């Protein structure tokens, strides 16, 4: 099976390499080659190609902040905006270090969604009140504080 991803055709081997890397990005070329029964040089070539084409964007450590002892709370914000300002607001949000993710979505109206982190509720509220609410074009904000995570993956495992 070959799937074209933005001009780059990925075959079964590429997808299997991606799946292994998503589970453990520290696997060596040899380890991946052994698991997939191909030469490590083949794995190297495939990974290089996927990095060059931006299919593999980056490798990063996923930190469990709770276990690291850092006290923090996380919240999901839904920001209703003036449609003319939504792009500008989303770009501004993306620049705040407290904001981990920004996206826009549409149901009955276009809204901006953002995942925000702060040390405690007081700091979370101050950040939203002083930095987000005053942005021109922000009409209203709904915020839900995350109380428990049941699953957290960055990519689907069925790839």
């Amino acid at each position: 099976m070959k799937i074209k991803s933005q001009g780059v055709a990925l075959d079964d081997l590429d997808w299997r390499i991606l799946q292994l890397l998503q589970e453990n990005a520290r696997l060596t070329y040899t380890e991946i080659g052994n698991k997939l029964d191909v030469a490590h040089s083949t794995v190297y070539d495939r990974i290089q190609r996927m990095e060059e084409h931006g299919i593999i964007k980056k490798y990063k450590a996923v930190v469990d902040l709770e276990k690291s002892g850092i006290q923090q709370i996380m919240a999901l914000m839904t920001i209703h905006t003036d449609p003319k300002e939504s792009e500008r607001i989303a770009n501004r949000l993306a620049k705040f270090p407290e904001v981990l993710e920004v996206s826009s979505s549409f149901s009955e109206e276009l809204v901006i969604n953002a995942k925000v982190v702060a040390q405690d509720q007081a700091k979370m509220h101050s950040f939203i009140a002083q930095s987000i609410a005053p942005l021109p074009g922000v009409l209203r904000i709904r915020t839900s504080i995350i109380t428990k995570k049941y699953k957290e993956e960055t990519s689907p495992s069925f790839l």
Partner: protein
Amino acid sequence: MAGSLSRVLRSVLREEAFYFFTSIGNYTGQSAASLDEFLQKIKEVNIKSLEFHLYREDFEKWIAQTLGDAKLAEDIKGLRNMKVVGNALRDRLYFLVSRRLKDLRITPQASK
């Protein structure tokens, strides 16, 4: 000591305005950039918002620190201590702010 009349009655920058929330992070879309506007919003905002901010001491802080009116901040603190809620809170808060505005305009030395 209360601030100067012009300071208390001025319109502040967007970043210094009062933003009405109903709970942590839940912004109503209503804001006030002056004491006059604040008075108007007292009539309009969700009662939950008035209760949320009163008991967090947000009104007192904004009025004292941003507008510079220690007298009105003190009056609102008294209201908080009375533990008023619901429409009684809205009415009482409206009365305090409108009375203060009237005093400031009739007798400008009230701001001293």
